[in-house]
């Protein structure tokens, strides 16, 4: 039986408090009107000589034409139609102000989604192991159940954020914009607020319902003598996976793709899923190693670690395959309406955009290709941390360019977001792991799993 140590609990609470303070600061310190924004931009321009900021101040003074290209691009990212020339300066300032006010929202959402997706991905991994009747993984089931304990708080927070973010994230919620935009009108059958909220609530209920059923059956299996709970779980997992494939797809459309409602990509939902899945497997591996080191998982051997590391490796490659599949097709055809998505990411987020490939692909492929290294805990931990950082950047790049455009930064608010949700994650996963014995008694594949040797 694992109990969350008081030291870890205290750490989690400190993280939550510090993170919360930072987030509140982030929301307070955003400019509330255009005067404050002008001061902020002027100070930045003098201090840093950053080209974007200079552009913005130039435009304030009414020489908008010099940075037309830049403006078009950021408004494209927000899915707006081009403005008339006369009102250019004013509407631009309004636009920049809007992006600045979106910054803390985006920082909050990136971190909230990042930790939530780990719990969600772990749940999917769990369901797959059940459906595949995997013989190696049952010893890890309680660890995975513990990680998915974060699903309920995590999903509620994420859903609240996407519902209340409004036009900060989703330009199609701006009625004035929709009125003058034929494309958005065409999509309003799907992208309208009531349907959006209903969908979000369906995801929330469906995912959490499966977790509730699965953990309840898993506990029942440990105490009962028949295999009925196991069989029920098998069925529930099949239906959950079907439900998940559909809802994950629409979730990616709803929460991420509709941030740039003029842009679309068919591969997008799979790409988001790959990120979800590889991060989740990495965290399962990290938590397993932590618990093993602390002496709670004697029945887990290095072959299990080897298998998890193989999954980390394989899904890192899978993620890269989808990332590149999306990028190559759009880059190659270079259709203006599609390519805007990458233009802003390459021009304004260059280092992050390509650095992410090194972290998510080159690093894991070189570290985890060797069979022996996959059995060495500190090696897997190192690769795991790099993968997690890489996928945080991935989520950052899904959200930031679409919401705040070129005015991104990585500062107090972003770090506070990570700390807050990390604290929350540690707290809920820790208490989740402490609820039941880590030995999943009664599982029909347990014996095989314990003796698993690769």
């Amino acid at each position, binding site marked *: 039986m694992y109990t969350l140590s008081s030291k870890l609990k205290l750490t989690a609470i400190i993280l939550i408090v510090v993170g919360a303070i930072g987030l509140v600061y982030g929301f307070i310190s955003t400019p509330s009107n255009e005067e404050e924004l002008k001061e902020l931009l002027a100070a930045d321009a003098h201090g840093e000589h950053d080209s974007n900021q200079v552009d913005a101040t130039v435009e304030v003074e009414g020489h908008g034409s010099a940075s037309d290209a830049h403006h078009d691009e950021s408004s494209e990212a927000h899915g707006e139609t081009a403005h008339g020339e006369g009102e250019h300066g004013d509407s631009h300032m309004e636009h920049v102000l809007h992006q600045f006010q979106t910054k803390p929202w985006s920082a909050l959402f990136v971190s909230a989604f990042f930790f939530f997706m780990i719990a969600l991905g772990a749940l999917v991994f769990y369901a797959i192991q059940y459906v595949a009747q995997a013989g190696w993984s049952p010893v890890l089931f309680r660890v995975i159940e513990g990680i998915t304990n974060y699903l309920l708080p995590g999903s509620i927070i994420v859903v609240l954020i996407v519902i209340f973010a409004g036009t900060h994230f989703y330009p199609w919620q701006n009625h004035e914009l929709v009125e003058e935009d034929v494309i958005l009108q065409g999509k309003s059958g799907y992208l309208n607020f009531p349907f959006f909220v209903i969908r979000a609530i369906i995801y929330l209920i469906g995912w959490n319902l499966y977790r509730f059923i699965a953990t309840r059956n898993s506990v029942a299996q440990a105490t009962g003598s028949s295999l009925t709970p196991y069989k029920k779980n098998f069925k529930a997992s099949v239906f959950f996976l079907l439900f998940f494939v559909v809802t994950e797809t629409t979730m990616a459309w709803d929460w991420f793709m509709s941030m740039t409602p003029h842009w679309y990509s068919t591969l997008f939902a799979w790409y988001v899923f790959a990120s979800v899945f590889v991060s989740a497997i990495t965290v399962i591996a990290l938590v397993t190693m932590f618990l093993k080191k602390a002496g709670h998982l004697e029945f887990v051997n290095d072959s299990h670690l080897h298998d998890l590391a193989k999954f980390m490796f394989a899904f890192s490659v899978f993620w890269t395959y989808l990332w*590149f599949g999306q*990028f*190559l097709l759009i*880059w*190659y055809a*270079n259709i203006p309406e599609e390519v805007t998505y990458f233009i802003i990411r390459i021009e304004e987020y260059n280092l992050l955009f390509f650095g992410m490939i090194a972290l998510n692909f080159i690093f894991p492929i070189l570290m985890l*290709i060797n*069979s022996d290294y996959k059995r060495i805990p500190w090696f897997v931990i190192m690769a795991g941390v790099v993968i997690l950082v890489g996928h945080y950047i991935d989520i950052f790049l899904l959200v930031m360019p679409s919401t705040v455009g070129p005015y991104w930064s990585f500062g107090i608010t972003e770090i506070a977001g990570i700390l807050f949700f990390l604290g929350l994650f540690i707290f809920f996963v820790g208490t989740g792991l402490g609820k039941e014995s880590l030995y999943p008694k009664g599982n029909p594949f347990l014996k095989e799993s314990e003796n698993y040797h690769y």
Partner: protein
Amino acid sequence: MASKTIHAIYNDDDLLLHAVKQVREARYHIGEIYTPFPVHGLDKAIGEAPTRLAITSFLYGITGLSVAVLMMNFMMVQDWPQDIGGKPSFSFITNMPSFVPIMFELTVFFAAHLMVITFYMRSRLAPFKKAENPDPRTTDDMFLMEIDATNHNVDDLSKFLYDTGAAEIKLIDNK
């Protein structure tokens, strides 16, 4: 001096694995083992060094990647940088994404084929090679262990092998 080997034939792979352990403990030298199918754990039981085929494959893959990069850099960027459909062939990196499918395939191609050829060469497999099969039954349902008996008492060794469960024991004299 003429060398002698003993062929001990077993009809079960568990028995064989068990016998291999006993033979090694008794410090007899196992020359070769013939089995109709892969027996899991046999290589470890004999004390075979792990294969380095995967390492060669990795190196071949890197070779393939280099071939692809050098080839396309020369053809598409240096030798004749044409404007084909507006693709930017100013430097390798500007047109890199369109080369990736070829880079990937050549990496896999080299890694796979050269590794297979390495395997054939190391295990001396080729068309028209004469089969080195001491007993045709070993390709069907028998397991044969070859033990060097040159410096041992043949009777003692036969008795020992009989006790490990061998179904047939043959003395082979190589002249």
